[in-house]
């Protein structure tokens, strides 16, 4: 499997890999390790703005790279269920093979779940 330069860079550096704790942090996860792809996002939110974001991923390099990028981009934005860019744009950005598009949907679900944790707690 060949990877594009940005895919390799985000896969190898994996910025924002980890977890967040404490007040104002919300967590969302999707997928399953047994089925080969699992992604989790933690976001720390203050008055609707994301102060910090982390991810964990049991996944292929494309998925790890995309999840890392999403966490990186999120910081400073306001909480929304949508990803910073569409799954189509994401798959272009990281040259994700067609058969792997489903894995980006797992990222989308995990992110939406994290965002939902914030919205559903009365904000």
């Amino acid at each position, binding site marked *: 499997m060949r990877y594009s330069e940005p895919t*390799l860079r985000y896969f190898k550096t994996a910025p924002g890999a980890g977890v967040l704790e404490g007040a104002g942090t919300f967590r969302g996860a999707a997928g399953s390790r047994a089925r080969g792809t699992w992604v989790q996002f933690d976001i720390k939110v203050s008055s609707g703005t994301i102060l910090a974001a982390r991810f*964990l991923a049991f996944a292929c*390099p494309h998925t790890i790279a995309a999840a890392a990028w999403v966490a990186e981009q999120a910081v400073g934005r306001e909480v929304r269920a949508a990803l910073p860019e569409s799954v189509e744009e994401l798959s272009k950005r990281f040259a994700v093979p067609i058969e792997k598009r489903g894995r980006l949907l797992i990222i989308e679900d995990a992110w939406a779940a994290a965002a939902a944790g914030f919205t559903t707690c009365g904000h």
Partner: protein
Amino acid sequence: MNSSTAPGRPVYLDHAATTPVDPRVAAAMAHCLTAEGEFGNPGSTSHAYGDAAATLVEAARAQVAISVGAQPDEVVWTSGATEANNLAIFGAAEHYRDSGRHIVTSRTEHKAVLDPCRELERRGWRVTYLAPDGGGMIDPAQVAAALQPDTVLVSIMHVNNETGVIQDIAAMAAICARHGGARLHVDAAQSAGKRAVDFAGFGVDLMSLSAHKVYGPKGVGALLVSRRSGGKRGDAGRGAHSDAGVHLQALQFGGRQEHGLRAGTVPTHQVVGMGLAFELAEAARQADAVRLESLRDRLWQGLASLGGILRNGDAAHSVPQLLNVSFEGVEGESLLAAVRDRLAVSTGSACTSALQEPSYVLRALGRSEALSESSLRFGLGRGSSEQDIDTALTVVKEAVSRLRRISGA
């Protein structure tokens, strides 16, 4: 010790996929190519160029035969073990079709055995696929139990290409002999130079060999076809090959080469390379085994410190050149991507790794899909050094720790 790893290149630990050609073998091959050398067509009986080539071909045939306990006239040159497996399985099935249409094999065979068996199922044969135990071993009693009155062929490999597990071929041969109608084919592509092979001593009927797994060239192999008398049921002097021994229908027609079993110009340089490679491998086998076993153990112990790792294949019954390990908490493709710049290993047989599917061999040993995918096969070889092992340890430990951190495992 010629290291397989040239400076600046990843450490090569994929000797089960293929090996570099021994420089002595490469030199012998070069002598059969250009105008100054023996470039004649070994099939040309009308001049000295052909005679000289034919003499080299027969000398190579004897080298291979001696190193595996066979007779020279039992050696049929092929383009590799894939062709040898196809010739053995289709050739025996078609020749003995009137004696029966049942074949026994195992779930951990190479695709070059499984795919011909599936094709035969499509053509109306019945195939029994034996399941190995968790260590990859097939109990000879399973073979005995699977035999049916109309079983014509049993195909079980000697050394598994993914786990290095060694089957008890001699015991299976005895069982087939008692049955009387079942011929035993053994895919020994991974055996030469790793494990003593004794075609006659084992009592095997058909055996596939390959040169490029043992420091010989790619694109050449052989099928050993027993000419021992005391033929089995269905051997009423028929068949292309000989009166005594096993009979086969050829796959490839168009010349009397190889007893009419395999038409086509015999590539002198290729068989000369295979002959010498087998001779050298047999001579080096025991010394190699001792050295590589200690390197393999060094690798295993080093990895063990990571925790959460599983060794695939029964360690007590496997060749010292192979180590197959599954890593918990890391995804297979990412593991490979994380090591591949500095380490050349395989996540399954080279023949299947083009497909992104989990190793069917490890699945057959009971590993989960995830653990089958997160496995690495370390294939040690003549060129492997302690330095190579230590580099591999550093690279793999770094990658596994980092990926486990990313996956929260």
